């Protein structure tokens, strides 16, 4: 939508139109009530202007009918907003199963992007149009937030865990990326740009980019370098549980709980190994906090996810 002063960011993702429509709906409702009430108040002030210094107003106390009307109608309107908003929110929280992965790590004051195929970027992000993209977000230090207004999405990057967001870019072009959670001196400098390319151009770009090995290859290398294989063998004979088939499985813990082994579980088990000790095993795994970076963690977990039962 082109207006003399731009009112909307570019419409560049699959949810942008719906987001803008929801916005306009609420603008309409709010605009209506603002104009209605303000006009009423001004009108009353004029129509009932005091004529004589000793005049008083009429003795009117209230009206239950009016109170119910102006309680119920606003409540119903707000319920409509709630339902529509919650639906959109839910869909934005659940990346589609076929989404391609990209890893993004924020640190003061830059964004480090890693494509699974191995291409890395700093502050830039290249994505293909028309494909669902799931971003796994991490932070190396303080809170950050990866915000792409043209796609209408953002998510906090929280140190100590991974968060995810997803989008489907629709229109090739270049759009702003901002850090949207205050993080210190260069918070307003922690910006970048996302380049949406046609799928063919994206493939070309991927293969031409400098690659230092795919995420899975790097993860496999780290797995050996950090000697994980010493305890986590391909069968249950090691001092630690085997990691074959672990991703997505249900894991019984020593304290009686059962958790699902998602990315955050794997991350926590590497960084803070005593947090969730598996039932039947001794709490002897060293913690790798401070010994492995967020990017390495992403690579390790990408590798572990490929360990499937034959």
């Amino acid at each position, binding site marked *: 939508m082109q207006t003399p002063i731009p009112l909307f960011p570019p419409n560049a993702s699959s949810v942008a139109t719906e987001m803008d429509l929801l916005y306009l709906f609420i603008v309409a409702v709010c605009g209506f009530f603002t104009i209605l009430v303000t006009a009423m108040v001004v009108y009353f002030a004029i129509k009932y202007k005091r004529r004589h210094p000793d005049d008083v107003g009429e003795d009117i106390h209230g009206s239950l009918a009016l109170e119910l009307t102006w309680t119920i109608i606003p409540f119903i309107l707000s319920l409509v907003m709630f339902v529509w908003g919650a639906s959109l929110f839910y869909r934005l929280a659940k990346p589609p199963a076929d989404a391609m992965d990209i890893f993004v790590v924020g640190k003061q004051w830059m964004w480090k992007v890693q494509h699974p195929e191995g291409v890395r970027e700093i502050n830039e992000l290249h994505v293909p149009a028309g494909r669902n993209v799931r971003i796994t977000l991490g932070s190396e230090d303080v809170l950050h937030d990866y915000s792409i207004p043209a796609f209408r999405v953002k998510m906090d990057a929280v140190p100590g865990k991974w968060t995810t967001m997803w989008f489907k870019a629709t229109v090739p072009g270049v759009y702003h990326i901002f850090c949207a959670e205050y993080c210190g001196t260069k918070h307003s400098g922690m910006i970048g740009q996302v380049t949406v390319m046609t799928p063919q151009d994206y493939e070309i770009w991927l293969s031409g980019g400098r690659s230092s090995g795919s995420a899975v290859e790097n993860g496999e290398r780290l797995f050996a370098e950090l000697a994980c294989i010493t305890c986590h063998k391909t069968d249950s004979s090691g001092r630690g549980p085997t990691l074959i088939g672990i991703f997505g499985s249900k894991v019984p813990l*020593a*304290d009686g709980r059962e958790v699902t082994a998602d990315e955050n579980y794997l991350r926590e088990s590497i960084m*803070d190994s*005593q*947090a969730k*000790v598996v039932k039947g095993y001794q*709490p002897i795994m060293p*913690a790798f*906090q401070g010994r492995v970076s967020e990017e390495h963690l992403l690579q390790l977990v990408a590798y572990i996810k490929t360990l499937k039962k034959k």
Partner: protein
Amino acid sequence: MADASHLHAHGHPSTPLGAGAAHAEHHPRQQHHFYSMDQQLEASILGMWIFLVTEIMFFGGLFMAYIVYRTAYPDAWAAGSNHLNVLMGGINTLVLICSSVTMALAVRCAQIGSRRGQVVNLILTILFGTVFLVVKYFEYAEKFEHHLVPGPHFDPALPAQQQIFFALYFIMTGIHAAHMVVGIVLMLIILGMAWKGRFGPDYYGPIEVSGLYWHFVDIVWIFLFPLLYLLGAHLGH
């Protein structure tokens, strides 16, 4: 002036007209803006209860943090609890309960006008409170010796999340101890007033509301003790 038909001098016994005329029926401890000692006492008690509600919310934040982390790290919590000295904690619990008994007796003595009873019981209360703080000092010293203070000197053999347990241990018991110190200072002031025979059946507000504060600090400890000291399958080191 506008219609004043609903304003008239009212026959309240202690209402000054204009700039505060003294009245014979005025209790010497009645403040000028109250119209009776009853109103003053009720206001003071309501005030202290409201203040205690704010204290519940204050400690409540700490209990919330405790609940969140205990749910996340039950093993670390149990293990951390095992490092605490149950004997010292237990002694302190008994000591505080006794101090609440003597506090209640002190208030009762004020209400029946026994000056000696008030003084004895207040001194005992203060003594018990001081014993609590002394035991606490030894407890903290022990933690320092055993490298259980979070930070660079924390025992590296222990899992990292136990530091959070000990951080909360120090903060919760530390803030409680600070409240005890305030309580003891308050009791010293009340002791001074009781010694001068200020309190009696017609005036015991200050000692009653101070007693409420003291009981509250005691109750907080009753919650802290099991939550911090009595977790885990084994009691002991």
